């Protein structure tokens, strides 16, 4: 009798009067808490946010919508792929989704037009241990996808034309592949061919895997009609990082070896270290 009285009192005092409750003993769910990997991205407008796991992809228009929902998943360990701002309207093409229940699929992103110069897009992988009857919150750090390249050439004489051609840019990025350091997001091995860039800064894909250097060719046509070609042999462009190359027209050489210096954790300056006569790509 006493235990029934205690049980009744407990039920009355702590009982849940449910119409609907996400957290029940026989269900399991996970919500995703988005975070910026780079704090300076805070406040950026996000749209088309997707969560993908276990063969399911769900899309949301705003971070608030994304935080208001849970993924209902069976018990288990999951890697959840998050993407943001990767829309077809911005030239992004995602392949490999929604995947299967077998685990994280090989999701690749490419650009319909490699020179589309889309606004920045983000992705992240969050690991979640989903348990029955328990609500899990998985944190996903949003990593920048696009590299941003800026090339400034000072002291260019009036009437001079400079055509910028970039080589070794990756055709796609494998979002769910990890590099040697365990970081998600690995450039593919296929390039998009040579890109003629006519505006800076420009958002591009990184340098292809397997190539140690980015190659920027400057074809200079002076006002008098003479032509000069300059090859800038620059470091690799990595996923999500920004690069800025400052050149002086009066110091241009046919071949210039570029070395990096750090401006911030996510931005490198490129500077000319000197001419190397027998260059190797």
């Amino acid at each position: 009798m006493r235990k029934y009285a205690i049980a009744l009192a407990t039920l009355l005092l702590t009982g849940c009067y449910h119409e609907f409750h996400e957290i029940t003993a026989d269900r399991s769910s996970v919500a995703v808490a988005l975070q910026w990997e780079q704090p300076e991205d805070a406040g950026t407008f996000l749209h088309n946010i997707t969560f993908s796991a276990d063969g399911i992809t769900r899309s949301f228009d705003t971070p608030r919508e994304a935080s208001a929902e849970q993924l209902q998943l069976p018990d288990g360990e999951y890697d959840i792929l998050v993407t943001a701002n990767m829309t077809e309207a911005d030239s992004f093409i995602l392949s490999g989704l929604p995947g299967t229940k077998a685990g994280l699929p090989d999701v690749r992103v490419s650009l319909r037009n490699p020179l589309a110069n889309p606004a920045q897009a983000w992705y992240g992988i969050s690991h979640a241990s989903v348990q029955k009857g328990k609500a899990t919150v998985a944190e996903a750090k949003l990593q920048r996808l696009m590299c941003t390249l800026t090339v400034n050439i000072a002291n260019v004489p009036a009437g001079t034309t400079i055509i910028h051609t970039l080589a070794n840019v990756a055709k796609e990025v494998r979002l769910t592949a990890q590099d040697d350091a365990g970081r998600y997001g690995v450039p593919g091995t296929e390039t998009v061919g040579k890109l003629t860039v006519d505006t800076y800064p420009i958002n591009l894909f990184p340098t292809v895997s397997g190539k140690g250097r980015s190659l920027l060719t400057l074809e200079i046509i002076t006002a008098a009609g003479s032509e000069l070609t300059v090859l800038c042999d620059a470091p690799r462009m990595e996923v999500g990082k920004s690069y800025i190359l400052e050149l002086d027209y009066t110091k241009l050489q046919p071949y210039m070896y570029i070395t990096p210096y750090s401006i911030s954790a996510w931005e490198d300056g490129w500077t000319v270290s000197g001419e190397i006569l027998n260059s190797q790509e």
Partner: protein
Amino acid sequence: MAKLFTGRVLATLLLLAAVAQGARGQALAPVERSWYVGVQGGTSFGQGTFRSITEQKVHWGLQGGLFGGYRFNRLLSVELGARYGAQSQYALDCCPYWMSEEEVRYMAPVLDEHGWYYKDLRAATQWGKLALQANIDLLSLLAKPSCRWSLTLSPQISAVTTSTRLITPDREIPHERQWHLGLGGEAGIGFQISQSVGVALYGSITCLTGERFDNIPIHAHKSNLLWDAGLKLTFGL
């Protein structure tokens, strides 16, 4: 706090038992129509979306008040009382939510917005209640007229005001005072110590109409209740 309360209840029961033992054999005059007044006090609990009694812990509140009434006979009396209480409410385990600064509930923190997990919040409530109740002594229907014990059920209607502050890890969020119609009741076990002095242990529930008194975003949980329990000391006039 829990030990203190339990200790006081036990002490009161012992006192009642001692008084009952001492009073045995001394017959009381039959109850006549009469006025009475009294004081009462004890603990209180809140039960909204957040609750004072959670799976993890009982968070005891405090309440006290004055009352006065008119006794028609042993069976029936009516009573008007004013009580003031305060207690805190916390999230249940089944609500692992997050609340934005705009006080909107989410399943997870919202990017670029400030907020708090429910588990880190406390709803601190102060309340006042003006209640009218009818006391029906069910034991009087069964026991001899000379019996000093009573077993009272008291349907109650009340005007209740609540004021809740939301305590977050970094600041307090005050909310406007609310007014509710309260419907509920009280149950008590009493003992008449002498012709004019009686004591009773009681428990009371007040169902609040209107807005949720804890000011937590409404979701899933429907209750909007105040509980209180304690000791009443009654003096006949």
